[in-house]
């Protein structure tokens, strides 16, 4: 219920007073929101400027696609973009492939020892707490010895290892909402565990699978620490490319903005499109506990 309505009902303000209140509130909300988003908004604008136009911080100008096209053709950015896409698509796919059955078995599986499900679940959760600095030294030395720095597979393995627990965490609560009767009934009907998972459980929690996959995709796309330390020139991802702009004291702002636009637009759009399921997944995963 909105505040305006309540205030109205209680104080019986005039119709004029109420719409004035809504107008002021709308203005305040949008002023705050635009100010908060301003750096990104301004970057979006600058991406459509030429380098010469970008020297002045004008908000009104003739937009051009020249800089964006330049960034997406000649520069090394395309290589980084391709690496990022590979990590996100393959990494997220593998995380779901490993994490969804794991979460399912943690909820419905039966193990020899009682309490195994609970223990394993807690184990997965605690790995989320582990900061990447805790693993970087051995991973770095391993990957060097195995020559994985020059291939995308080292980083990919690290990403899968770090993000499977997030899938397990988010999906655990979704699976827990599936009535066990449904699973038991399907068992009596002769469904194997695998069929139960694919035909019955996953369709019931597809919102959860979707939001977990999306969250992992955004995390991998934006991940910097591991990418920065575990890749070489040919395997680095977009966050590493963006970090290269740190030394340019205010130079090439149009180019920087165009590159940023490409780097941040996908997760921002994905995030916006799925706010609702994301909130649900995040809060269900933890508020319940």
């Amino acid at each position, binding site marked *: 219920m*909105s505040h305006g309505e309540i205030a109205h009902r209680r104080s019986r303000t005039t119709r004029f007073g109420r719409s004035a209140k809504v107008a002021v509130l709308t203005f305040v909300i949008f002023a705050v929101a635009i100010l908060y988003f301003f750096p990104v908004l301004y970057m979006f604008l600058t991406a459509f400027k030429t380098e010469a136009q970008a020297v002045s911080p004008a908000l009104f100008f003739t937009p051009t696609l020249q800089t964006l096209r330049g960034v997406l053709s000649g520069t090394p950015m395309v290589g980084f973009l391709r690496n990022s896409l590979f990590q996100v698509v393959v990494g997220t796919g593998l995380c779901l492939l490993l994490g969804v059955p794991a979460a399912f078995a943690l909820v419905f599986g039966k193990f020899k020892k009682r309490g195994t499900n609970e223990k394993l679940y807690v184990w997965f959760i605690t790995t989320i707490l582990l900061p990447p600095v805790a693993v970087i030294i051995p991973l*770095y030395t391993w990957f060097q010895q195995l020559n994985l720095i020059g291939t995308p597979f080292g980083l990919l393995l690290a990403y899968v290892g770090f993000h499977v627990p997030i899938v397990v965490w988010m999906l655990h609560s979704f699976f827990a909402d599936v009535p066990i009767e449904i699973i038991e009934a399907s068992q009596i009907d002769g469904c194997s565990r695998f069929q139960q998972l694919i035909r019955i459980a996953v369709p019931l929690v597809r919102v959860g699978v979707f939001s977990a996959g999306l969250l992992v995709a955004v995390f991998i796309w934006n991940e910097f620490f591991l990418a920065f330390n575990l890749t070489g020139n040919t395997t680095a991802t977009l966050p590493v490319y963006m970090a290269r702009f740190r030394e340019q004291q205010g130079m090439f702002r149009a180019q920087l903005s165009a590159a940023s636009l490409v780097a941040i637009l996908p997760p921002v759009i994905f995030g916006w499109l799925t*706010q609702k399921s994301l909130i649900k997944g995040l809060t269900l995963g933890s508020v319940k506990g």
Partner: protein
Amino acid sequence: MKKQKTRRDLAFILPAIVIVAVMTQVPFLLTIVYSTLRWNLARPDMPIEFAGFENYLYFLRFPYFPEISEFYRIVWQTAVMTGSALVISTILGFLLSVLLDHRVPGINIARTLILGPFFVMSTASGVIWKTTIFNTTFGWYGVIASSLGASPVDLLSNYPMGVIIMLFTWRWLPFFVLVMLAGLQSIPEDLIDATKVDGTNWFQLTFFIKLPVISRHTTVAIMLGLIFIVKEFGLILVTTAGGPGTSSYNLPYAVYMQVFNASNVGRAGALATMTVILSLLAVTLVYRLVKRQAAIYE
């Protein structure tokens, strides 16, 4: 029959366990082992040998006694930047969610704008702020300051901690709003209506009813925020690079500098191990604190 089923259930989990263990737990255990070794990557001629707690003592001792050693300063800096960002995000996050909990025209657009920075990668947000806002000649800060007749100072080198706390907050506040707004919207309307009948005013409604009711959401936001902010690295690297000197290092940044610039595996291992221990301690401590606060409300 039963045994076979057990085994099949295990087969569902085992691949996940293996990859998670090999990529997180095993390297962490190895890091602890490394922390007890004398091992320098830049000196392959020197033997790798057991050094006991030498690497830990290197950071923990006070060589110039009255002066505080660098390690403690970095721990303090990490606590200050993480803690400040968390406190500001919690307070502003609640106020902003209350503001965004109104049904005005276009509210979804406003929510979307506030949420945006959460999805922006840390290195991109760092360079955007650095070049388009903080730059003293071309950035908005410089332009506005000059037009007001003031001479803009370089914020990044003069107030590195302030800048970093601000950027941490800018990036993580949306997450707090996301979670807390979900909490506010889950409050049953009956509850709000009931307070109306009692003649509760806006202030009481907001801080004595809504705030306690969403305490679970607040707890989630604070805990996840802490877990993520305490390992933040990219924002520091691209803005202040830990400087000037080491005045804006946090622990992850110090570990990074120890491995990749000093090449000292043993010391880096010790620093990484202490970082993990301190992070886990902080998480436990904050959890207890928040839980107790929430318990008072409930």
